[in-house]
């Protein structure tokens, strides 16, 4: 017989033992780190807030996925590369860019069948075909879009190019918080195409350069004589093309009759002669920095502001088409958020009831539910730490994790408490190991099943897959071993 006093002391020590175990300690440290990462606090206005980031279906915002109307083609040719490319460019009536020695980027949409005769005519052959643009072009587009969205004053925007195999990007995805679909479309959906042309004779013009030759655009400024203007910089190739065209078509000799026009979406947004200074300096060498003057006073300033946007906004080198889009209003977003919180808490409570119904033992049910809740907490902490944007599928994934988590705790408990008898430590460890084998096998199948989704760009499902996999890992590595230790100490008295 053990006297009550001694028993109490033993129990106290056992609980102390739990907190000395490294598995339990790891869990506690992670829980603390998670709370720090989530950082629940009240903001300046006294509203409760956390560090969790929400996707566009849980807050107001819109996203657009744009498809590049261009293709990257693998080729072989018997012709010299330069001739081949310029022939193709002429016959296809678009820019053809050399990506590497075996690949060309064609900046206009053609199917492979449509392209084949052109390639044959130019003395080459198509080896591979993929819709999209090269990695370089994709990152240029990303930069341009970012610049453009920022200049529109949209506060929270993200632009991502989705680069697939072979470094070809087919899509670019734009996410903007705080706007509705219509505004988003106005900002990015319709892309302008910018071009500078030079007047040849009468109303005829010739192509000089496209917007992608403009490397930077300055904000409007006023010169000493009160003239407003927008400065911009050309790339070396752009500057050379500019000089060549200006000389070839007589803009340097007779600026008034050979004006330079800026065209956005086939509309002339600006047209002016070369200044006499620039005209004479171009004859001797190319110039990279230029200023487009727009006149004096308020009118000049307004014109300069518009031109700046045109210069920036028009600079997309490739046409795009809306492939997919979505938006959520502020009220629906917060409605979804409330529903998700309710669903999560109710699910946890329901699980607790079912478990209680089965075991009728608070000493088992309580740790089980707490471990389950702590898995969710750690996952949320992880999301905060890596600034992962939680969306609806992610939350469904979290609740699914809650479901698998409890499954595994049941396996553990049943293996250990075989026929309701708490075993001796040796037998206990053997049984724990046995249970872990089942759990690890089951976890491995979930990891494998989710891996393809996590690696693919299946839009919203990536988040779901990553959260599920993380949940499985956290469970197998951290929370379930800790649960094994806790349940052993609690029950083995």
């Amino acid at each position, binding site marked *: 017989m053990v006297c009550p006093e001694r028993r109490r002391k033993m129990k106290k020590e056992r609980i102390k033992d739990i907190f000395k175990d490294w598995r339990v300690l790891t869990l506690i440290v992670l829980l603390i780190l998670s709370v720090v990462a989530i950082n629940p606090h009240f903001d300046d206005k006294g509203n409760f807030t956390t560090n969790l980031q929400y996707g566009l279906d849980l807050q107001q915002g819109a996203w657009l996925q744009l*498809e590049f109307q261009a293709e990257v083609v693998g080729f072989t040719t018997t012709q010299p590369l330069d001739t081949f490319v310029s022939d193709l460019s002429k016959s296809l009536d678009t820019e053809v860019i050399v990506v590497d020695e075996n690949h060309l980027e064609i900046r206009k949409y053609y199917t492979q069948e449509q392209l084949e005769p052109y390639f044959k005519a130019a003395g080459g052959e198509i080896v591979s075909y993929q819709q999209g643009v090269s990695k370089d072009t994709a990152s240029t587009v990303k930069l341009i879009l970012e610049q453009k969205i920022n200049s529109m004053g949209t506060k929270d925007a993200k632009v991502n190019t989705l680069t697939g195999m072979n470094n070809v990007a*087919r*899509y670019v995805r734009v996410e903007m918080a705080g706007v*509705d*679909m*219509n505004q988003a*479309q106005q900002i990015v959906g319709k892309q302008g195409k910018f071009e500078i042309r030079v007047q040849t004779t009468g109303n005829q013009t010739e192509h000089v350069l496209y917007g992608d030759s403009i490397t930077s655009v300055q904000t409007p400024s006023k010169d000493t004589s009160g003239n407003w203007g927008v400065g911009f910089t050309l790339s070396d190739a752009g500057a050379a093309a500019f000089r060549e065209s200006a000389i070839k078509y007589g803009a340097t000799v007779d600026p008034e009759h050979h004006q330079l026009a800026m065209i956005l979406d086939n509309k002339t947004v600006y047209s002016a002669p070369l200044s006499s200074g620039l005209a004479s300096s171009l004859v001797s060498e190319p110039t990279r920095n230029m200023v487009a003057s727009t006149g004096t006073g308020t009118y000049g300033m307004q014109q300069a502001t518009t031109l700046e946007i045109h210069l920036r906004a028009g600079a997309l080198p490739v046409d795009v*088409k*809306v492939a*997919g*889009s*979505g*938006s*959520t*209003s*502020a*009220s*629906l977003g917060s*409605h*979804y958020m*409330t*529903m*998700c919180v*309710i*669903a999560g808490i*109710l*699910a946890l409570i*329901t*699980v607790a009831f*079912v*478990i209680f119904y089965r075991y009728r033992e608070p000493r088992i049910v309580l740790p089980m539910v707490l471990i389950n809740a702590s898995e969710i907490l750690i996952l949320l902490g992880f999301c905060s730490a890596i600034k992962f944007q939680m969306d*609806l*599928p992610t939350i*469904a994934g979290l*609740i*699914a994790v809650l*479901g*698998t988590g*409890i*499954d*595994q705790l*049941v*396996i553990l408990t049943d293996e250990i408490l075989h026929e309701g008898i708490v075993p001796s430590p040796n037998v206990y460890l053997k049984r724990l190991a*046995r249970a872990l*084998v*089942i759990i690890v*096998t*089951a976890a491995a*199948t979930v990891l*494998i*099943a*989710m891996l*393809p*989704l996590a690696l*693919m760009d*299946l*839009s919203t499902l990536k988040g*779901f*897959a990553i959260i*599920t996999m993380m949940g499985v890992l956290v469970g197998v590595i951290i929370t379930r071993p800790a649960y094994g230790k806790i349940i052993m100490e609690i029950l083995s008295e």
Partner: protein
Amino acid sequence: MGLFSYNIEKYSPKQLVIIPTILLVISLVVIAFVTVTIGMPVKPGIDFSGGTAVTVITPDSPDQIRAVFADYPLVSISEGLNNGKFITFGAMDDAKYQSLTALISGKYPDARIDQVGESFGKTLQDQAFIAIILAFIGMAIVVFISFRTFIPSVAVVLSAFADMVMTAAMMNIVGIPLSLGTTAALLMLIGYSVDSDILLTTRVLKRQGKLNDKLAGAFHTGIIMTTTTLAAISVLFIVSWLGQIQIVMEIAAVLLIGLVFDIMNTWLTNVGILKWYVLKGGGK
């Protein structure tokens, strides 16, 4: 667990697998029929076929909504509680879509819009198909590696296969479209379904004791696992249905259907094959 008693002992392997076999055949027929009719095993939602979905909370009746969108290719309107409406449109070009979003911004500023273009939908569909196939193969490999015996592994893989096929057939019958969300649910189901199968197989093959005791023990644990999961997913389903969160509701519905089939396929199909394997002398 006193919910219901099920005595695996009583039935022969043949008796155990008869019901699931019939259901599997029916399911395969349903899927074959749907595949022949529309070219896909499950009717695709707008994520894959292309189109636009609008979620809005409005007291307007479906007829009023139809009138508002008379100029657009409206496909269906489904109603939830609390005035929630889920409206789908067929494919349209960029200009038409832009005028639709302008109309929605004006008329229903609180709407949620999801739109997928046809070619993008096709890309997603191909990738989703690959994802499911890869996930299934990956699962099978893990199962074979961990049991290293042919028939028990086949039993587990077959049960998971039956789960997915029956769930897919049921999706056709109750009208849940295959979308990104339900694809995720089907993949999740692979994970859930092997959970209890692995428990069962491990208990039977790697433990000492009488077969019937081991089966009863595994059932005891397995059924509580599945019922807790069912409980959690039911809550998710009810809340998302009340709150009209379409994507979550579809995920939850598919998981619910799948878990019910999983109970059957684990405790009839898998048990049946495993019992037959052990009785004829396999697994010592």
